């Protein structure tokens, strides 16, 4: 790589501004992971199918594996690390759940077992956040279509659908769905 081919970019990620010098061929996903250390964004296929690398770019879901970091220059990115907020007064605890106020979608995935290995989870959460923003009260069918850009190899999607339903209720100001079996007779 010759120095002249490097580019300087400024990107806001989870509300924080970063300026970095990068190779033009560096993907946004690799930029987030390797340059910024935000390893919550996962790479499952690097060809735009699996959705594990999904982030919000100016509020819209984007495959960070299919975007170059230089294309994010001047834009705002939200990754899974940007969903939860530090809980006031709890900064010193080593209990993650106590230290962070999880986003309602994160909380619902936890309460309803919407994850197993966790590898698809960051992308799935980001897609669910966008889905519920655009359609606060989706039907089950709309949820299934809405998350169909994210592959999960573990859950069979059943509990993810329920988690999104429950998160939707919370975001609408309704009580969450109770934990327990889904579609069990």
């Amino acid at each position, binding site marked *: 790589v010759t120095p002249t081919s490097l580019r300087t970019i400024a990107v806001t990620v989870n509300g924080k501004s970063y300026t970095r010098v990068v*190779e033009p*061929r560096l993907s946004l996903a690799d930029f987030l*992971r390797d340059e910024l250390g*935000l*390893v*919550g*964004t*996962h*790479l*499952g*296929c*690097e*060809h735009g*199918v*699996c959705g*594990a690398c999904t982030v919000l770019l100016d509020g819209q879901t984007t495959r960070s594996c299919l975007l170059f970091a230089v294309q994010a220059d001047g834009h705002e990115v939200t*990754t*899974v*690390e940007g*969903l*939860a907020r530090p809980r006031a007064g709890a900064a010193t605890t080593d209990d*993650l759940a106590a230290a*962070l106020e*999880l986003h309602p979608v*994160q909380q619902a*995935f*936890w*309460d309803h*077992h919407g*994850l*197993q*290995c*966790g*590898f*698809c*989870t*960051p992308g799935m*959460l980001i897609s669910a956040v966008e889905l519920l923003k655009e359609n606060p009260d989706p039907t089950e069918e709309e949820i*299934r*279509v809405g*998350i*169909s850009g*994210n*592959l*999960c*190899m*573990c*859950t*069979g*999607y*059943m*509990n*993810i*659908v329920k988690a999104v339903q429950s998160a939707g209720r919370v975001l609408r100001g309704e009580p969450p769905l109770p*934990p*327990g*079996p889904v*579609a*069990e*007779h």
Partner: protein
Amino acid sequence: MVDVKEAPAERHYTGGWVRRREDPRFLTGLGGYMDDIKVAGALHMAFVRSPHSHARIVRIDTSRAASLPGVEGVLTGEEMARVTNPVRVRVAVQAEPEAYCMAYGKVRFVGEPVVAIAAVSRAVAEDACDLVEVEYEPLPPVVDAEAAMEPDAPLVFDELGTNVLWRQKFPYGDVAGAFAAADRIVRERLTIHRYASTPLETWGCIADFDRGTGMLTLWAHAQIPGMALGAISHYLRLSPAQMRFIHPPTGGGFGNKERSAYAAVAALLSKQIGRPVRFTEDRRESLTALVASCDGIMEVEAAVQADGTILGMRIFNVEDEGCSIEFATIHGLVMLANLANCYRTPAIEFETASVLTNKTPAGANRGVGKPFMCFAIERTVDRIAQELGLDRVTVRQRNFIQPDQFPYETPSGDMYDSGDYPRTLRQALEQIGYEDLLRHQAAARAEGRWVGIGIANAVEPSSTNFAYSRLINDRAALTGAGEAARARVEWDGTVTITTGATDTGQGHETAIAQIVADEMGIPMEHVRVSPTFDSAIAPWLPVSGNFANKFSGTDTGAILGAARKVKAKLLELAAESFEVAPDDLKIRDGYISVKGSPTQRKRIAEVSGPAYWTLAGRPAGFEPGVEAIHYYNHPLANLPDAQGKIRAQMNFANAAHVALVEIDRETYEIHVQRYLVVHDCGKLINPMIVAGQVHGATVHGIAAALLEEFVYGEDGQFLTSSFMDYLKPTAADMPVIETGHLETPSPFTPLGTKGAGEGGSIPAPACIAGAVEDALAPLGIKITSLPITPTRLRDLVRGATK
């Protein structure tokens, strides 16, 4: 029958719907997966892979690649072969081919690593791969297992003189008598394809060879880390004492995450260069060269009476192992575990062959061989019903092993522990409203629609007994089943558990904390379970790890064993200070108290702390600390008897699946409209986790039947190297998985549990096939081959209506 059968007095957590403690990490991007691990100064490895399915390597020129700035090391297969030992078959067969961790002399499948390059970044390593020149002399490939068995077939390994690596006949019971007594012989030929559950995280490793100490620290994915450690130390000619194997939290496994050869290549580069070397497969590499299930062919003959009673079966099974050396024979051997499925079949002859072809090496995938065996048996049972003019439910009920027959020994020696198969099916039919479905189907058929109902029953075996190796080689060292765990009561009262039982997303951290907390009488929050396996910290065996559904039936033995040992030590220490006998004490809510005198109590830390800090003046023989290791040897893992009977697996969950499908007459798309699973995996440690396993495994099985297939051209070219070609199910593709639950405890396991992880993947392909065939029954179409894609269905329909 087990050595840890004493039940804890009270169970607060076990059996409860307990949220997973590991989830907040995963939900906030702190999963700590392989690629998240930072190792200073690490180089990145990339492979030059074979574009040919079969070719002689004439010349390799790496000079341009080696001189690219940023390249630190280049390794060819030939160089590797000079300094490493060859790859061994895990279950030793009579004649072993000569193969190494990378291609040497010949390439034998598309994607086989030929040259490895380590460079300052993955991008530079890939740039360098493009500069490697390899001259190949293409050879005729063999990509079909039956063609590979022909005497004049091209040879995958010339030195073997055949592509049939292993072929053996297992006669169990009076098969000839059964066939002589039969009213009818029902025959079917069935085939299954190659597929894999494709964990979303691809395989990876980081190898750091310390030339000063001669120690290799290896972070690597492996389903069976101890065996991977054994393989890698063998390749690299290291003592196991020179290896530290670390298995971090993992983004899914399903049996696929085994690439010991790659880890050895990275380790050798690290040793040569003197820097850590890391590698993460990209998806194309993973799909091209991961371990998938074998594709296979099965010929089944069933000897039946006119009333549908099955007297005996003859099964000839061909497993296409691809170019697999390491995992060859395993599919055929594991199939012994569900050879009889849920039926009383008294005599079975099973002949199986492992055949090498110029395709990706096969290996374990969720269920290993058992989905195919279940598919073959269940399709045959449906065929028996059709040919005898009986209802398929009737034929199943007539042949089921009955609840009062447990423990039930199958012809091949498997000991089914418990279950109620007739009730499982009855409940499934009731829950789905079978009569309503039949009416719906009749009405739809009257309108010319293709609507079908599928039914499949399955045993879902767990905990593999590697002594099946002795069926092939009576001196095989690898036998049995076991696991190891360490419990340490820290001086603050926290109990730390480390174990060789690795986790790939099944929630072991939570499940282990549940059972340890109950066993010891302490709050769950006082139990810490290491999410990372580290061979230098955790006790382990070569048979440790995450495979064969073994957590419920094997790992629990190790974990409870270790917990009981430290509990006994705590009580012994407390007994001294209370001046009572240990039996007079109990632990509850984290307090040790004198029975019947609840005010006389101490916190656990008050007892464990002095065992670490206050050592002087203790009586002779006092052993400081409160720590114990338990190596659990599975008591049911036997050796084969003189007739070749063996418990290939040791616990048997069971299930009934029912599906309703409708096929679009225009597009041949198969819509799964209802899917119900009634399952019985004994006692549950955490019903929430089990439900997730049932959903996930079932969807794996449905997708295997309808969507997923690794396709090779006639030239052995690999045609499905992306998720655009290898179709994974999305949420929009899959049905709601309805479930029903039965609970017949296993008398053979410490907690009455049975494996739950593979279950759904075993009967689902059979169930879907049955439903599609039923939908097309008016056309007389038989579904004997998987997967069932719209294109194949169209061809079948056109063939039938010509």
